[in-house]
């Protein structure tokens, strides 16, 4: 029973990672690429690490603390890194794609 749960977690996690990297390959704007790749990859990696946590705790090794630390660290640092990179992309003049409708950050910059 727990093997089926572990297998489902591994498969769903790697499918999340695959779908997010397909979005990373196919989207046409860096901001939408970042939107695709940051959240879904973090979710997929966390599902895979949860599967390994279940596996090693079901084999009598106890809960591996490093896995929990990695999951918490990824959930904290992935949005921070994406925010820094998107800010860098905006300030170095990477344009939005042609189908973009609104750019609220530009009006926000020109105000002060």
């Amino acid at each position, binding site marked *: 029973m727990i093997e089926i749960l572990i297998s489902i977690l591994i498969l769903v996690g790697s499918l999340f990672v695959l779908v997010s990297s397909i979005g990373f*390959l196919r989207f046409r704007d860096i901001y939408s690429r970042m939107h695709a790749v940051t959240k879904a990859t*973090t979710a997929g990696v966390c599902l895979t690490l949860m599967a390994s946590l279940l596996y090693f705790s079901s084999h009598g090794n106890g809960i591996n603390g490093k896995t929990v630390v990695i999951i918490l660290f990824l959930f904290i640092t992935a949005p921070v*890194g994406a925010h*820094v*990179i998107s*800010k860098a992309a905006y300030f170095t003049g*990477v344009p939005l794609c042609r189908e973009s409708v609104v750019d609220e950050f530009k009006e926000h910059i020109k105000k002060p």
Partner: protein
Amino acid sequence: MIQTVSTISLVLLAISLVFCAYRAITGPTMPDRVIAVDTIGTIFISIIGVFSIKLNQPHYFDSALIIAILSFSGTVALGKFLIKGECFDRDID
């Protein structure tokens, strides 16, 4: 069952690594490459997790933790360099 599923999962993760490597090599802009390298690090953490299940070896998570920390600090450092560095500092304000 877990062996077969982890082999399939390793193949899927390798395909996504190829996609990210393509975007890192031929990314149109510099932040594309930075975010691609960061994503490659994150996918490596997942590969290490699946690989430790496949080999029944829980000691591989030290390297996963180190890869996570180095990937994050490299991303933040490159972002700060892109914002405030010399050769990429074009029009901030």
